């Protein structure tokens, strides 16, 4: 049997092991819970882990397997970002205003994974209401990057990305409104997939920007990301924006040659504030795709400089409407006052953190009388130009390659005082959400400080098969995705054990 400790196995390897009876779901769950207990105090990837519940479900998975059940994820523990509601398990969206909120239902994406046999291992940390690029906006304290504890894990799905990178979960769910799956995946050296808008149900995803939000997998490799997407994708009567277009067999494209595929390299994504090591690593990755038979086509995407302002106007406008529901009346925390109006104002003023209030203010302003045409409508029109820009590009190429993030992980506190600097972390990812396209980030190298670099592969709307095919081909000839941070490697484990056993 594979001699590595179980936390280093991917989901598809674990499924094989469980199927062969090499170990039980209970042993796997027990092992991961022990690791979380040992390692997570330094990272704070998780907001909530309920060991009793996890072990009970694992024992049940073992019973089901013994009785012949072959559900596709039977016994696999998964971490879930705390903006996806989970029945009976507190869900806060990283906000004080939802402290103590215990949802009466489960998000469809999570429910489908559970129906396939997966076990909810825990809820992971997030920027408050998924608003942020570093997980520092969580009301419950930041998550740290497993590669370097002084660095951020990215955000907003920083808890999920850090959990997978540190091997505190074999895979996890994140959500992506402007890059919140892909950017933390890049900064933590794992795989993150943002499905096309409408591909995965948003039911039970606590809304931030409704025309942009998607649920996506964070995994150790492309095969696992494809497996989770396969199970989550498809229409849901509870989300009228989920598409009834049939779901292809994503795993069927894995291993298919990329000979002859055209890969677009947009000049605009390799200029300006990009870190030189990121530039080099992404170009080297593209050269490797060329070695595999793909054709690299230089393209232009001139709307890049418009994407961030459009995103921050559209997303905040939608957020200002979506977050109106947190008024201290039906759920969440209430700060009592004499009148109902003061109850709203005080509850929201005290319950929301600084970034959430900033975005509600920006969105409210962009939608308010006198400014609507100049900001919100204008942004929606420029959004059309961005779509057209990408539609034209996809006439020439099959997939577009770029860096996921212009830099590797920055230091905690480095950008918290300057919102604009923080927003720039999303510059290469937001266009994908504005246009409804899909994209995946895969590890493609390290900078001189040993921090991971991500390659972003963008595909057209419902083009998941193409980006998975290319990303998978890349991982067949590279080892970057197999590297894990010191705390997750066996040598380090050994050192820790020796340390712990000292009298």
């Amino acid at each position, binding site marked *: 049997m594979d001699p590595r400790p179980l936390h280093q196995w991917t989901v598809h390897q674990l499924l094989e092991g469980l199927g062969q009876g090499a170990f039980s779901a209970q042993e796997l769950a027990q092992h991961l819970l022990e690791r979380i207990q040992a390692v997570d105090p330094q990272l704070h990837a998780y907001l909530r882990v309920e060991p009793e519940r996890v072990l009970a479900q694992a024992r049940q998975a073992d019973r089901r397997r013994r009785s012949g059940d072959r559900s596709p994820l039977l016994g696999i523990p998964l971490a879930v970002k705390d903006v996806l509601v989970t029945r009976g398990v507190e869900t806060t969206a990283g906000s004080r205003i939802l402290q103590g909120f215990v949802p*009466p239902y489960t998000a469809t994406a999570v429910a489908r994974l559970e129906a396939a046999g997966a076990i909810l291992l825990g809820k992971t940390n997030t920027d408050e209401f998924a608003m942020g690029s570093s997980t520092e906006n969580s009301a419950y304290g930041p998550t740290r990057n497993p590669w370097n504890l002084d660095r951020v894990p990215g955000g907003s799905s920083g808890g999920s990305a850090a959990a997978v990178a540190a091997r505190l979960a074999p895979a996890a769910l994140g959500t992506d409104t402007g890059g919140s799956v892909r950017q933390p995946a890049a900064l933590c050296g794992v795989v993150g997939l943002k499905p096309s808008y409408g591909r995965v149900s948003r039911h039970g995803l606590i809304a931030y920007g409704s025309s942009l939000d998607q649920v996506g997998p964070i995994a150790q490799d492309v095969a696992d990301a494809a497996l989770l997407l396969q199970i989550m994708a498809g229409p849901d009567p509870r989300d009228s924006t989920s598409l009834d277009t049939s779901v292809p067999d994503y795993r069927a494209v894995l291993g298919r040659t990329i000979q002859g595929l055209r890969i677009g390299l947009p000049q605009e994504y390799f200029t300006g504030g990009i870190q030189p090591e990121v530039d080099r690593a992404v170009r080297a990755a593209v050269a490797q795709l060329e070695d595999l038979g793909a054709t690299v086509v230089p393209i232009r995407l001139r709307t890049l400089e418009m994407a961030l302002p459009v995103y921050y106007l559209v997303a905040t406008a939608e957020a200002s409407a979506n977050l109106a529901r947190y008024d201290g009346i039906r759920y969440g925390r209430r700060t009592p006052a004499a009148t109902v109006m003061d109850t709203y104002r005080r509850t*929201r003023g005290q319950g929301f953190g600084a970034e959430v209030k900033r975005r509600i203010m920006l969105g409210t302003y962009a939608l308010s009388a006198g400014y609507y045409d100049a900001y919100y409508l204008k942004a929606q029109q420029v959004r*059309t130009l961005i779509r057209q820009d990408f539609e034209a590009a996809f006439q020439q190429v099959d997939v577009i390659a770029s860096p996921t993030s212009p830099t590797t992980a920055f230091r905690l506190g480095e950008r918290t005082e300057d919102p604009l600097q923080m927003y720039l972390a999303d510059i290469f990812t937001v266009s994908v959400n504005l246009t409804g396209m899909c994209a995946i980030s895969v590890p493609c190298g390290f900078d001189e400080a040993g921090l991971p670099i991500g390659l972003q592969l963008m595909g057209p709307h419902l083009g998941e098969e193409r980006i998975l095919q290319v990303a998978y081909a890349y991982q067949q000839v590279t080892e970057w995705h197999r590297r894990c941070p010191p705390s997750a490697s066996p040598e380090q484990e050994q050192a820790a054990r020796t340390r712990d056993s000292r009298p």
Partner: protein
Amino acid sequence: MKLTPEVVRHVAELARLELSEAEIHRYTEQLSAILDYAARIQAVDTSQVPPTPYVLSRVNVLRDDASEPSLPVDEALANAPDREDGFFRVPAIFEE
């Protein structure tokens, strides 16, 4: 775009956010900087461009008007900060 504290106070009122004076001043500065950055889209000619509020072409997704089981009242009220007799309890909305 330079915002004034008065505009920021007005927006906070619209958004039902009670903000401290320090917050009003911080947001005045920060939102001005963000709007300055966003101003780059003003130069784009969009006179002939329709807006994209939503990227899918589906409209009017319909279903049968059939009733389904819904949440029991107790569960629906379980997270309420204040309740009474199966209802959400709120401060008086109308004055006597």
